[in-house]
C-alpha cells in the first residue's frame, strides 16, 4: 500500500477544480491510456492577464488525480510568466510529498501546464515531450524531457529517472542511453551557479539537497554521516557524525570532498567549517 500524505488523500477524495473550461485560453493534454495516466488541463485568463480559472480532467491513480488538483490550485491567480516557472517539485511539495515511484504524476502536471501555456501563447505545436530524440519508446519520453527533469530534481540514477518520467520503465532497451543523459546533465550542473545571484534560502536549499543526494551516500559507505549546522553567506558549518566524527582525517575529508562538491554545484566561494562542540 502506498504511503500517501494526508494532503494527497484529501486532493484525491475531494479534488478541486474538476472539469473543462469551454473556450479556454490554454489547453494542455499529456499522457495516454497505455501509460496508465492522462491529464487534460484547461485555463482561462482574467482581464489582468492572470489565470482566473483552471480545471482538470485526469485518468490515473490517486496521486495523478491529487497532482492535477494541486496544480490547478497552485496556478490560479498566477501570471503566465509565474505559471511557467512552476516545477514538478512545487506540485509534490504542495501535496506534502509523493512516494518516489509516483513522482512522475507531478511531472505530468508540469508537462500539461507547459503545454497549456505554449498553447495560450499561440505555439500550438505538439506537446513538449515529443520534441527531439525519443529516448524511451515504450513511454514516449524525449532526451529534452529527461534532461529537464534531471536538472529540476537533481536526479542521479536510472531508477530515479524512471520514477520521475517513466522513461526506462518498459522494455529496458534505453537504459544505457538514459545513463548517458544522466552523466551529461550532471556535467552541466557542475558549473558554479554564480553565488551572488542566490538568496541565502536558495543557498541552504541547494546545500541541503547536495548533502542528501551526493555527500551523505558517500559518507555513509564509510559508516559516517553529516549534519548541516549553519549557512552564513559563503561559510557553511557542518557537523560530522558516526565514523567520520572520530576519524583523524575528517578535516581532509571536509576540504577535499565536501567543499569541492559545494563549490562546484552551489557557489564558487563556499568555505566549509566543522562545528566546534
Amino acid at each position, binding site marked *: 500500500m*502506498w504511503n500517501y500524505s494526508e494532503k494527497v*488523500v484529501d486532493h*484525491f*477524495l475531494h*479534488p478541486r477544480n*474538476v472539469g*473543462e473550461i469551454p473556450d479556454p485560453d490554454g489547453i494542455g*493534454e499529456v499522457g495516454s*491510456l*497505455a*501509460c*496508465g*495516466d*492522462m*491529464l*487534460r488541463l484547461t485555463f482561462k485568463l482574467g482581464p489582468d492577464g492572470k489565470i482566473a480559472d483552471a480545471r482538470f*480532467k*485526469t*485518468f*490515473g*491513480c*490517486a*496521486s*495523478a*488525480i491529487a497532482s492535477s488538483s494541486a496544480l490547478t490550485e497552485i496556478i490560479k491567480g498566477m501570471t503566465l510568466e509565474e505559471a511557467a516557472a512552476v516545477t514538478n517539485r512545487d506540485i509534490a511539495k504542495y501535496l506534502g510529498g509523493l512516494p518516489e*515511484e*509516483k513522482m512522475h504524476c507531478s511531472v505530468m502536471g508540469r508537462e500539461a501546464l507547459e503545454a497549456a501555456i505554449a498553447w495560450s501563447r499561440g505555439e500550438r505545436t505538439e506537446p513538449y515531450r515529443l520534441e527531439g530524440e525519443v529516448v524511451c519508446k515504450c*513511454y514516449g519520453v524525449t532526451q529534452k524531457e529527461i534532461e529537464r527533469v534531471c536538472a529540476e530534481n537533481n536526479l542521479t540514477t536510472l531508477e530515479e529517472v*524512471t520514477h520521475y518520467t*517513466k522513461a526506462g*520503465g*518498459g522494455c529496458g532497451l534505453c537504459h544505457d542511453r538514459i545513463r548517458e543523459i544522466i552523466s551529461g546533465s550532471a556535467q552541466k550542473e557542475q558549473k558554479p551557479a554564480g553565488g551572488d545571484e542566490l538568496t541565502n534560502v536558495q543557498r541552504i536549499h541547494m546545500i541541503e539537497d547536495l548533502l542528501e543526494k551526493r555527500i551523505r551516500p558517500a559518507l555513509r559507505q564509510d559508516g559516517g554521516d553529516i549534519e548541516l549546522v549553519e549557512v552564513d553567506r559563503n561559510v557553511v558549518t557542518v557537523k560530522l557524525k558516526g565514523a567520520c566524527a572520530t576519524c583523524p582525517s575528517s578535516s581532509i575529508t571536509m576540504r577535499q570532498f565536501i567543499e569541492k562538491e559545494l563549490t562546484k554545484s552551489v557557489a564558487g566561494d563556499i568555505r566549509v567549517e566543522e562545528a566546534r562542540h
Partner: protein
Amino acid sequence: MKTVYVDNNATTAVDPAVVEAMLPFLKDLWGNPSSMHTFGGQVASHVELARERVASLLGAGTKEEIIFTSCGTESDNAAIRSALAANPARRKIVTTAVEHPAVLNLAKELSNHGVEVQLTGVDGKGRLDMDAFRKALDQNTAVASVMWANNETGVIFPIEEIASICEKANVPLHVDAVQAAGKIPIDLQSIPITYLAISGHKLGAPKGVGALYVRRGAGFTPLIMGGHQEAGRRGGTENVASIVGLGLACELAAGRIESERTDVAALRDRLESRILDTIPRSFVNGDPDNRLPNTTNISFESVEGEAILLMLNEFGICASSGSACTSGSLDPSHVMMAMGVPFTRAHGSIRFSLSRSNTAEEIDYILDKLPPIINRLRELSPVR
C-alpha cells in the same frame, strides 16, 4: 467502519479453529520434534498428523510425498530446481505467460544461467494454448510448470489433460496449486502430476507455511540444505505450530469444498452479474466457464484501478487490482497483458475474491458503493 474482505486470493483469515489448534504448540508443546526425549519427540506425531491431512486434501498416495516448506514460493522453487537437477542433460523449462512471479521470476533467473524458457500463451479468455504447449515439450524439457488456477482471474487450466500430455512426452509436470487447493477438488492419485505446490495462508492457515508434493520416485534435491528434517529434503527445524495449523486447515477445507462450488460461487455470481448490469462498460476478464468459484476479475473501462481500490477502501471494502499503479511497476499486470486485454481495460481491472465468510449483505454493500465510485472516476476522466 466495517471491513468487507473480498481479497481472499491475496490471503485468507486464519480459521479460528486453526488458531486454537496451533496455540498449544506455542505455549506448552514447544519442544523440538527431532528430540530424543518425550517432551520434544511427542510433537513429531502432530507434525505427521498434519502431513496426513495435507496428503488427504490433495489425494496423495502416501503422506511421505508431502514436504513442509515456508510458503508456496519456496515449494515452486524447490520443485523446478529439483526437476532440473534430476535431469541435468535437459536444459529447458516450459511454462505459461500467466504464472505467478514465484515461477516466472525463477524461470527468468534460470534463463540467465543457460536454461531455455518457453512461455506458452493464453487466449483472450485466459485459456492456455494447448497446441503450443504440446509442441513446446521436447526431449530437452526438464520440467513443465503450469498453475492449476490463476490468482488474478481464477481461470482454471485443464490440468488433467496437461498432465497426460506431459506424461506422454515424458516430461515431469510441476503444478502451482496455491490458488486451487481448498477451492476445487484435487486428486493426485488419478492425475500424473510430479510436483505440486500449496500455500497455507490461502486456505485458512497462517502465513509462513506451505507444502510441496513430490511424487514417490521423482527426483528431489533440497532447496535448503541442513539437518535431517523432512526426511532430509528440507533442512531447518519444523515450524510446528504452523504445520499443525496447515494440517487442520486442509482438513477443514476438504470438508467445505462443496460449499465453495455452491454457496461461494452463488455470492460471486450475484456480485458479478449485478456489476455487469448496473455499471456500463464493465467486462469480465477470464473464462467464465472455467473459473475458481470465488473469483471474479472485472475491468471498468477508462478508469484506473488504484483509484477504484482506494475509494473502495474508504468504505472498508478490500479488493485488489491488476493496474500498473498498484504494483509499483509501470505496466499493467502480466496476466492482463498476456490475455491481450486492451490498455483501456487492463489499467482498470479489479479482482474480487470471496470466501465462505462473505455474506449476501456484504455483496449488496459492495453493489451499493461501487457504481457511484466508477461514475465519479469517469467524470474525472478526460477519456470518453
